[in-house]
């Protein structure tokens, strides 16, 4: 399927994907959890669950709720921490298949630097994705992703220690002007931008008169957010010259083409993995078939050709 291959240019060369279909952070574990539902080699890549320097227990329960065409989550970035990741999960990550992108999160620049330094030497990790856009940890990411200077600061700190790995910065849609943050990250050395993380949202239950989430406010994802993601990707692709990865509400091959049409180089599949864990594995082939039907020769030929 040569026409699906994408070679994403970055300052260190080309980031080569067999196809533009990646799994989004926090929705695909470490890949192995999905191994009985399809061949991991079929994917272009996968982004691992957000990793912090030290283990984090996450937020109180309940921390997920289904909403029409979407879901709210306030997981609070529960994860096992860098040390256990290196020891237990890294060796189990799929090799010689999808590109493994490690998603990282921290509360200060020193931690971001340490995560980047360690992971840049970790065998099997092909890129870093920096989560500067977490709306649901009280003391956290909000600051970085919603303010251009802070976003640039994190980007620069990670870039400094990322060695040979390309750095993706993942933007939050919960800002007044996403292009301002995008430009700041690009200027600070980001190699690619992922758009978007979840949208700030809330749910209540009129019978119990309670919030649906213990943390009250959480992040909305799923089909409901696709128009927002599409708008963000289009705006950011116009504003910066570095490649953009689209994420938000993507379910089908047609959704993928929509993101490529507005300028995305690749896409990530998140909440859709929960409806059917085998679905993502079929998407590259379905994308190929749809491209044939629409006479699209390659992803590159179609990218950003919006009339």
């Amino acid at each position: 399927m040569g026409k699906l291959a994408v070679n994403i240019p970055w300052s260190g060369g080309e980031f080569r994907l067999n196809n533009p279909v990646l799994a989004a952070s926090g929705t695909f574990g470490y890949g192995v959890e999905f191994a009985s539902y399809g061949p991991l080699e079929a994917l272009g890549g996968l982004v691992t669950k957000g990793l912090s320097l030290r283990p984090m227990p996450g937020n109180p329960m309940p921390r997920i709720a289904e909403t029409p065409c979407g879901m709210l989550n306030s997981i609070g970035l529960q994860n096992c921490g860098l040390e256990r990741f290196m020891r237990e999960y890294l060796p189990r990550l799929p090799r010689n298949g999808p590109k493994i992108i490690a998603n990282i999160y921290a509360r200060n620049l020193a931690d971001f630097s340490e995560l980047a330094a360690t992971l840049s030497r970790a065998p099997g990790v092909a890129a870093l994705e920096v989560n500067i856009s977490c709306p649901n940890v009280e003391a956290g990411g909000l600051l970085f992703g919603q303010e251009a200077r802070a976003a640039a600061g994190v980007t620069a700190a990670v870039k400094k220690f990322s060695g040979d790995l390309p750095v993706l910065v993942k933007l939050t849609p919960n800002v007044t002007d996403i292009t301002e943050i995008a430009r700041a990250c690009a200027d600070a050395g980001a190699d690619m931008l992922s758009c978007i993380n979840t949208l700030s949202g809330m749910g209540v239950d009129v019978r119990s008169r309670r919030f649906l989430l213990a943390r009250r406010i959480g992040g909305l994802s799923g089909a409901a957010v696709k128009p927002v993601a599409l708008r963000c990707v289009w705006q950011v692709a116009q504003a910066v010259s570095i490649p953009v990865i689209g994420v938000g509400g993507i379910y089908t091959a047609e959704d993928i083409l929509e993101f490529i049409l507005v300028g995305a180089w690749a896409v990530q599949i998140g909440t859709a993995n929960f409806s059917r864990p085998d679905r993502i594995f079929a998407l590259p082939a379905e994308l190929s078939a749809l491209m044939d039907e629409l006479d699209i020769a390659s992803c590159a030929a179609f990218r950003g050709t919006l009339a």
Partner: protein
Amino acid sequence: MPQMHLCSVRALVPLGEGEKRGFFSLLLEGCGLPDWTPGQFVMLRPESWSRELPWARPFSIGRWDGNGLEIFFQVVGRGTSLLAGLRPGESVRIFGPLGQGFAREENKPVLLLAGGMGIAPFAGYIPRRAGAPNLRLCFGHRAPLACYPYAALAGNCLSEHFPDERPGDLPSFLRRMEELLAGNAREEGLVLACGPVPFLRAVRDLSLKHGARTQISLENRMACGLGVCLGCVVKPLMDDKGRNRSRQPVPPALEQGLPVPVCSCGPVFWADAVELDA
């Protein structure tokens, strides 16, 4: 290994006056024939569901044999309301079997404690030990007995049931549970419980009081069912030394202190290994 199965509805049968009350047996065919352990579950999502309902729904395996997969469910929200409208022949996707089932201690006296639809996993458990002399079921229920898969199970074990209709019903159910549980503990047997959280808390407290070895099955809200979203977690109970407080051997994930996914580390846990009070 859990797998995706595309099955079709063979029958949707209202239980008792279940149509009105929303209790059903759903029989699916074409779903393969995996190895499974009672207490395990499947994630289920009809093909007809649009992106409007993104999550599949978890249900205990009631029966899974050459005739297909049977689950028992109660209508509680929008997903289960839609399931109640399934027609024969409709396509349903399930993935599973998922999670860790109940302990299999074939030679021990086993006491099953069920509250309401919490009886569902025992529909999978009892037939596997049919006729065992020391298998007992104690069942508390709000809806009429015929709404649950009770009659078919009652013939295969010592069984008793307690309707919860009037004030005073619940205390007598609890008293009987305590008697049976204390007896089981004296014989160093095994207690298995499934039902609403307040019921499980009562079972846990009685188990601590009498020193019973008890496993509980949790029904937390689930999105992925695969241990990746971390939405369904429960906190392990840890001691001062950072070890799990359970007197039973627990899997390594429960020794690490972080909340664990109910879908992949459970839904069955030793009652003294996890926090029910949060």
